[in-house]
């Protein structure tokens, strides 16, 4: 498959601070990729470099095989930036028509209205008088104006209510089915997990994990088996059992962290007697995400 975006050893330094540090990855045609990370991880800076809004301090960024600033690239990409800005003194309809005129093969006006969910009465409103949610819809319509091959969304759902979020992600799925390549940033793990086929995890300007949500989950989550102990047992001894990574005691329960809960269960049954009320916890990705970012911060 075609490589749509390619970053090689990209570093961006602001004054003395490295916002992005030696990042390399590529995105293939038709992929839906989430750039995930806590605030300040370098997500927006990376996206801005892909859009040609910032130049990398070192390394190369190519979009569709070219410099992101080239006209050919601009004709084929669309983006929603984090701060939604609108031109003033023009109506929604006028702004959309203006943007359509920029592109060689724009989507029809009706289709843009449908995709963005803008209402008839909103089309006649002045763009600067729209509410936050309406501005988001307008900026989505503008991102789609040129029928782009590649779409960039920077924290697209910040400030959206639950209903708008749902509709937004449905539209993203629709676009994915049309073969668009979609890159979005988010600090909500759930969004990345639900929508993306691939998660690129950022922390402190570095790419720390890259893979499918399932792979990332498998790598990050810690499964565990826990039980209430019925008699004094040698906790240290449990550490020698196969597949056990860590043993801890919290609130009268013994927690055994493991990569294979089945194996731990069968060992426990063999030992028999001292346990009661066994629970298997497959590990929540949220916890893992938090843990991971905290751990890296501690290092």
């Amino acid at each position, binding site marked *: 498959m075609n490589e749509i975006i390619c970053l090689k050893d990209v570093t961006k330094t602001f004054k003395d601070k490295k916002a992005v540090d030696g990042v390399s990855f590529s995105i293939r045609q038709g992929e839906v990729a989430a750039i995930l990370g806590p605030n300040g991880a370098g997500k927006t800076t990376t996206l801005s470099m892909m859009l040609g*809004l910032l130049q990398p301090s070192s390394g190369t960024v190519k979009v569709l095989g070219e410099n992101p600033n080239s006209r050919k690239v601009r004709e084929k990409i669309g983006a929603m930036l984090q701060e939604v*800005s609108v031109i003033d003194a023009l109506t929604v309809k*006028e702004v959309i028509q203006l943007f359509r005129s920029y592109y060689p093969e724009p989507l029809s006006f009706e289709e843009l209205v449908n995709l963005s969910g803008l209402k008839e009465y909103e089309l006649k409103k002045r763009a600067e008088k729209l509410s936050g949610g309406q501005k988001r819809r307008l900026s989505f319509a503008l991102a789609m104006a040129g029928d782009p091959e590649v779409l960039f969304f920077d924290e697209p759902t910040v400030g959206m209510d639950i209903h708008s979020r749902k509709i937004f992600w449905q539209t993203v799925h629709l676009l994915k089915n049309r073969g668009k390549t979609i890159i979005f940033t988010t600090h909500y793990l759930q969004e990345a997990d639900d929508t993306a086929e691939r998660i690129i995890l950022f922390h402190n300007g570095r790419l720390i994990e890259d893979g499918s949500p399932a792979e990332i989950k498998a790598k990050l989550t810690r499964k565990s088996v826990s039980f209430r102990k019925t008699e004094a047992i040698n906790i240290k001894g449990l550490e020698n059992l196969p597949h056990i990574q860590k043993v801890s005691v919290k609130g009268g329960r013994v927690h055994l962290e493991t990569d294979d809960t089945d194996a731990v269960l069968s060992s426990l049954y063999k030992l028999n007697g001292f346990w009661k009320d066994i629970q298997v916890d497959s590990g929540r990705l949220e916890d893992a995400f938090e843990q991971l970012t905290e751990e890296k911060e501690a290092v």
Partner: protein
Amino acid sequence: MNAFFMQSKAEILRILRNPYYVFWSLAMPIVFYVIFTRVFNTGIDGQQEWQAHYLMSMTAFSVMGSAIMTLGIRLVEERAQGWSKFMKITPLTDTAYFFAKMVGQTVIHTFSIIVIFTAGAVINGVALTPAEWLMCGLWILAGSFPFLALGTLIGTMKKVDTAAGVSNVIYMLLAVCGGMWMPLETMPSFLQSIGIWLPSYNFGNGAWQIVQGNAPELANWLLLAGYLFLFVVLSNYVRRNQEAAV
């Protein structure tokens, strides 16, 4: 080409819908014109000459204002609100965007000139030959370029409030010291000696000469061209430094 046409049209619409433009560039000059030709300075020698002279003053005052303020403040607003950044993602080039603004401004200036000239003809029956009307209009249109360049220089400022404040002060100083409100001859001599070097005086004087049946003075041409060059160089220099800082 279609994009450029649409962009120019959008810029024109945006200025026409701006209440500041309608107030400062159309209403104010016409009100001043009425006050200083119908309320004061009536029954003076050379009444007709004064009415034609002051019509040119007010038209030049109007066009200078929209060139400096409308353009400058809007440029700052667009950058402050992230619109200019967003435009960089679209295929419309910076150059096309810039020239569409210039075309939009020029069309608006033409509109202001026609409206204020018509007001003068209606209010005071100012009668110039068709050639004189045309020459005055063209002079004011062409003479607005240095002020547009000054507008882009103001447009490099970071905050809208600063840009609005600074451009207001510059605008008023240029208008008063350049003899647009009161003829330069009525002012103290030290102000006159400064005034003749200002772009506003040279802008107005070209049109004042035309209504008296003369041609604009060579100094007017040269000084306006010099200011145009200076402001273009300065604003390019500032913008390049800002871009390099990112």
